[in-house]
C-alpha cells in the first residue's frame, strides 16, 4: 500500500498532477452549478422588477 503511494519515488509529481486535476474538475462542476443558480436568481429578480402581469396591457400585447 505504502509502495503504491510512493509511486517509485515520483509521489510528489504523480499525486500533485492527479490532485490538481481533481480540484479543477470539481471546481468546474461547482462553478457550472453556481452559475446556473445565479442566472435563475438574476432572472427572478428582474422578473420581480418588471413583472409583466403587474404592467397594464401585458395580456393584450402577449396574446
Amino acid at each position: 500500500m505504502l509502495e503504491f503511494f510512493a509511486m517509485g519515488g515520483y509521489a510528489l509529481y504523480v499525486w500533485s498532477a492527479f490532485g490538481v486535476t481533481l480540484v479543477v474538475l470539481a471546481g468546474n462542476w461547482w462553478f457550472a452549478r453556481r452559475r446556473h443558480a445565479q442566472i435563475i436568481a438574476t432572472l427572478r429578480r428582474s422578473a420581480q422588477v418588471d413583472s409583466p402581469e403587474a404592467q397594464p396591457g401585458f395580456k393584450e400585447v402577449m396574446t
Partner: protein
Amino acid sequence: MWKWFHQLASPPHFYRLAGLWAPWFMGAALVLMAYSLYAGLVLAPMDYQQKDAFRIIYVHVPSAYLSLMAYTMMAVASAIGLIWRMKLAHAVAASAAPIGASFTFLALFTGSVWGYPMWGTWWEWSDPRMMTELILLFLYLGYMALRAAFEDRKRADRAGAVLAIVGVVNVVLVHYSVEWWSSLHQGQTIMNENATMPASMLTPLLTMILAFTLFFGALMFSRLRGEVLLRESNARWVRRLVAEEAAHA
C-alpha cells in the same frame, strides 16, 4: 431525423433534454473515471524508462485533448452562430470557453509536473506543444475578457465569435511556427514517439479520454441550460420556469 434536430434547437426542449442528460453523462463519466484511475494507477505496469511518472499521462493527455477540442467546438459553434444567427450556437461557444480554459491550464500544469522529473525542467520554451497550449490559454482568456467587456449579450456573442474564428487559424499557425522554430534551435527528443504502448497501459488512457469527454459533456449541458435561459429571458416558458424554481426554493 430532421424533426428531431428541429426539436433539439427549440430552446425549451433543449433545456429539458440537457437537464435530463447532464446527470447521466456525469454518472457515466465518474464510473469510467474510477475504472480508468484504478486501471491506470494500479493495474498498468510501470514504464521501463519513465517508471511511475508516466502515469501522469492519464490526466495530461485527456486535458490537452479537451483543451483543443473545446476551442475547435467554440470556433465551429461561433461560425454557425454568425452564419445562421443561431442563439444556441452562441450559447455553446460561451459555455465552452471557461471549461476549455480550465483544461488548458490542466494540460500545462500536468505537463510541467511531468516534465520536471523527466527532462529536468518545469518549462521548456522550445517545445511546440507547450507553447501552443500557452498561447491557447491566452486566446481563451482574451475571448472571455472580450465577452466580459460588453453589457449587451448579443454583441458579446457576435464579437466573441469573430475572435474565436480568427483565433482558431492562429492556433494552427502557432503550432507549426513554433515547431519550425524549435527545429532550428535544438533537436531535443522529449519522448520516444515511436514506442508503442501495451494494451494494459493504452486502455486506461482511452477510457480516461472518454471519461473526460463525458465530463465535458455534462459540464456543457449544465452551463448551456443557464445560457439558454439568459438568451430566452423574455420567453414565456422561461418566466414560468423561473417562477416555479422560486416556488421550490
